[in-house]
């Protein structure tokens, strides 16, 4: 008996996201971000999104620049070599348009891990002694958002707790994060929804399992039996997947292990051109609103550019792209 299909268009998948939703994503900095879905969120003009992510990157800069985001809880934003900080976030936090709650990398990872494990918090010794845990710098608390009216926001940023099992000292408890939606970009997804990720898994498993809904943007949809031949390689079972969208090059300009390189020149241009709001708006007009869909975006990039980025099958990265000065 055939299982019900979860395949749908990008438009339909992104319509599952509501204004005000808490979102998280697959990937790491400029790697394997669901960029096609990010652009579609901007096209659909979602508002007041609450991002909870281990780190951010180009995708976060696009959403923040477009004014879709109200709250950002994370630890880092930038474009690595291709842009040393998140210019859009910096602009909006300096102007007071964006609420930023700073955690550390491990804190954010543990917040999503707690969500994925179904517990309200996890203990850690990371980042003790820093201003990250300074009670004066609890921005959601200062903004009055920890009163319990939004059940996704914990009543405290942290707790300090003494270990009495082994007298290890004072630890932190960091609260679980349970996003409404995780958008994941995967290399391969089976027809029923089994997800396979190649290369570094980053915090994808935690992000996907912490969220209530999971939208998977797949470079390829493949026969379910094909992925099940080696179930040890798969990350997510079908019952956790709510939508499957098949789109090639959907992480562009971020990179996708075994498929294509990050498009450094494209990201650098984004970084340089979007330091002002006017610059962002012009960029978005060109690359988001100026194309009707992902196919048009790829057309605009052109086949030569994409083929240069394509990974060598043996190496899992491109051997054609020019990277340095020599």
């Amino acid at each position, binding site marked *: 008996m055939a299982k019900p299909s979860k395949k749908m268009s990008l438009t339909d998948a992104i319509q599952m996201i509501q204004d005000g939703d808490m979102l998280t994503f697959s990937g790491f900095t400029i790697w394997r971000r669901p960029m096609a879905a990010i652009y579609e969120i901007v096209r659909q003009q979602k508002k007041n999104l609450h991002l909870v992510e281990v780190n951010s990157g180009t995708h976060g800069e696009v959403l923040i620049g477009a004014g879709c985001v109200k709250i950002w809880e994370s630890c880092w934003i930038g474009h690595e070599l291709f842009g040393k900080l998140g210019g859009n976030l910096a602009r909006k936090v300096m102007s007071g348009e964006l609420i930023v709650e700073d955690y550390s990398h491990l804190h954010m990872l543990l917040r999503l891990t707690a969500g994925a494990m179904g517990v309200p918090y996890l203990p*850690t010794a990371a980042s003790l002694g*820093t201003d990250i845990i300074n009670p004066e710098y609890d921005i959601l608390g200062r903004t009055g958002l920890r009163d319990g009216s939004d059940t996704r926001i914990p009543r405290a940023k942290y707790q300090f707790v003494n270990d009495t099992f082994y007298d290890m000292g004072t630890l932190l408890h960091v609260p679980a994060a349970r996003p409404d939606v995780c958008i994941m970009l995967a290399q391969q997804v089976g027809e029923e929804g089994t997800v396979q990720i190649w290369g570094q898994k980053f915090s994808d*498993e935690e992000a996907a399992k912490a969220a209530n809904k999971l939208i998977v943007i797949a470079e390829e949809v493949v026969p379910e039996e094909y992925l099940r031949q080696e179930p040890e390689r798969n990350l997510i079972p079908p019952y956790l997947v709510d939508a499957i969208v098949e789109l090639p090059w959907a992480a562009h300009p971020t990179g996708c292990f075994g498929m294509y390189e990050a498009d450094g020149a494209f990201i650098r241009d984004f970084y340089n051109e979007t330091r002002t709001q006017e610059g962002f708006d012009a960029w978005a007009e060109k690359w988001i609103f100026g194309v009707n869909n992902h196919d048009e975006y790829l057309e605009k990039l052109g086949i030569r550019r994409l083929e240069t980025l394509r990974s060598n099958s043996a190496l899992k990265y491109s051997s054609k792209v020019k990277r340095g000065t020599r």
Partner: protein
Amino acid sequence: MRNQELAKPGEYKVGDILAVSAAREVQDGEVVFAGTGLPMLAIMLAQRTTAPNACCVYEAGTVDGRPIHLPASVGDARCAYQAAICSGLFDVFSQLQRGVVDLAFLGGAEIDKYGNVNTTVIGNYLKPQIRLTGSGGNPDINSLARRTVFIMVQEKRRFTEACQYITSPGWRVRKFPSGEMAPKQEVYGKFFRGGPSAVITNMAVFRFDAVTGEMYLDTVHPGFTPEDVKNNCDFDLDISRVSGETVPPTYHELELLYKAIDAEGIFLA
């Protein structure tokens, strides 16, 4: 034969002496956490010279990779080439917290005399003058590795009496809830494993006093004097313990850096 002769001033660049000095901090057999950029050059150089059994962990989830092309990011597919493990953050950060990491290379926009580092904001955190990238894994790694080495740019405004915002913990840190400054040992309890052991800049190498946790000048790169360095520190730098001049790169090290490790000119333009 490898040319182990030292290069002369003018024959190497700032990035070269940074990479070489950092590589010399690695002891053989160590487990090293490295970030993007110079730290990658340092660990790869160390593995090719004095620390062949050092193992490199990249925070995106690869362990002991043996890249044949230099990664441009810790998330790069190149990090996974011939790696022992390609997993994810939960694996490598759990191991870090478990205590397996001997050494880590980190950076920062601002450092204070106790080795506290700021990568978050310039100005008042609640009304930032400049918003930076944020912490990343810097504080976690600095909290939980045995030793950390910072690679920084030497500027007066970056070497400050006290960081405007402590992103990453040095030897004297905030003890909450009160927020008063206290030795790291006191704040970390049995989780205390060590802290910043060196700061390497374009001018010098610094270390920290074992008792006070204060930074002092250890070696000065060829071409600079202790006073030059002191003039590029906003706090009153202890230059009384200078042990000599930083050993410059050898021709062999330069060849490794430019011909093998960063043959494409990604970080060493």
